[in-house]
């Protein structure tokens, strides 16, 4: 990978909670990953393997204990609007309408009022929420909340979208539909996406590269590069490569996930 194509460079990153104290937790150890511009990365692994921690370091919410996270040749030192986050629990602002939620990042960017209303309406339309602009988050379903949260994250036109198990709280049908929408939106926008999940099929369905992590300490265990074209569509779930990759991953991950289950 040439340096100009390398959008994010994670090198030798470790994160230790409570370092030096008796109960220290090594959430990440020596994680190395280069991510190209426009790439869709799925971080896959059982819970507790440090996926959220890695995403939070990328967002700039936390700082690494050692190692560096570089974006466009510059170290990530705190949250900024070039990397927006979609959270599992949506984290929508409950007191704002969906429209105002989506406008939030634009307001922060000081986009004039009329323009930001227009952009927000456009993004809500793209996630199929036209007609729900004036609803409050608690008045719509979980799937709609997550759509709104995706629109909110995309509206300020970030370079990188960080998603932490965004579909984890949704029912199976909604999840499948939203997977396809996310694939469409991300390939349309060409943004770099880092998508945390513990669903094997979800990771294989969405990603250019599936980064498989394992716990205690959290580290990268293998990387699977996809052969499916973009955007991903429903039929690809029946593609032989898709099904065999999912079942192979399942076979290799099973022992670890069973172990986790027993604890």
């Amino acid at each position: 990978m040439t340096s100009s194509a390398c959008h994010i460079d994670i090198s030798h990153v470790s994160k230790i909670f409570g370092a030096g104290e008796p109960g220290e937790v090594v959430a990440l150890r020596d994680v190395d990953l280069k991510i190209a511009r426009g790439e869709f990365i799925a971080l896959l692994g059982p819970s507790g393997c440090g996926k959220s921690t890695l995403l939070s370091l990328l967002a700039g919410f936390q700082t690494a204990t050692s190692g560096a996270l570089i974006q466009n040749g510059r170290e990530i030192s705190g949250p900024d609007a070039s990397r927006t986050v979609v959270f599992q629990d949506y984290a929508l602002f409950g007191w704002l309408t969906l429209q105002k939620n989506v406008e939030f990042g634009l307001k922060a960017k000081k986009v004039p009022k009329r323009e930001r209303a227009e952009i927000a309406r456009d993004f809500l339309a793209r996630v199929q929420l036209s007609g729900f602009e004036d609803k409050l988050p608690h008045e719509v379903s979980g799937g709609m909340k997550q759509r709104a949260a995706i629109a909110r994250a995309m509206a300020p036109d970030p370079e990188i979208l960080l998603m932490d198990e965004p579909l984890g709280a949704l029912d199976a049908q909604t999840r499948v539909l939203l997977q396809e929408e996310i694939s469409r939106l991300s390939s349309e926008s060409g943004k770099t996406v880092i998508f945390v999940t513990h669903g094997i099929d979800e990771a294989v369905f969405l990603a250019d590269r599936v980064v498989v992590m394992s716990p205690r300490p959290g580290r990268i265990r293998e990387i699977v590069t996809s052969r499916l074209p973009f955007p991903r569509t429903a039929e690809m779930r029946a593609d032989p490569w898709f099904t065999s990759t999912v079942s192979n991953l399942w076979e290799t991950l099973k022992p670890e996930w069973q172990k986790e289950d027993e604890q």
Partner: protein
Amino acid sequence: MTTQAVRPVLDAAGAVPEQKQAPAPRANSTGGRWRSRRTVALNVIGIGTMLLLWQGLTAAGAINSFLLPSPVAVLDSLWEMSKDGSLWVNLAASLKRVCVGYLMACAVGLTLGFICGWSQVVAELVRPIIEALRPIPPLAWVPIAILWFGLGDMSAYFLVFLGCLFPLFFGAYTAVRSIDRNQINAALCLGASRWLLFSSVLVPASLPIMMPNLRLALGIGWMCVVTAELIAAQTGLGYLIQQSRMLFQIQNVVAGMVAIGVVGFLMSAAVERIERRVNAWAPSERN
């Protein structure tokens, strides 16, 4: 008498933050009409019975009307005081004091509460001071208040301020601390400046949790103003009842007490209305 009336309320106020109030304590906002017709009927019957009994007992001479005048006599003197204007003048004086003291306490208490909720370091510096001052009832400050500010408005402002300060501080403090970290992170990654984060996220997110304390503080402020006026002022409803007592106009004393009760109830009802509106978005979003 007044000590006993005020103190338990203040203690209750102090205990509020520890109870970790739920943001939407009442479910009635979703339950349609907050009071059914039946409830209203029962309420009216209850209070009506009490008044009738009271009137009957005084008329029959079972209650010494010098010690407790009848409801009719009280109404009569309310009417008289309202006609000669003394009721309104004193009511206005009390209201002004509670407003000024309350707003001062909001400015100091909410600001300090927000800062302490945000910064652990400041919280550890400030909380011991607050904890040390909190158990002292406002009534115990009266001598100092008179010494510092003399009789009049300033003393009353000061006492109301003290009474309201702690519930307001703890309201803001607990509210900020209970805000969902992800909402703050969401705002930060969307590029929010400090000001936008404060005004568009911290304040609205904490309002539903703060509202019960805002209401509580107003109630305490109202009690404090009356207490202050009993001793340290020469106008106001508290002064009115104290003055009437010295003139042996007991029906005016009770009339003043009734006015205090009614105004206190109305203030609390008004804030509760606002509270319900503020909470409208909260219940299901924070499940």
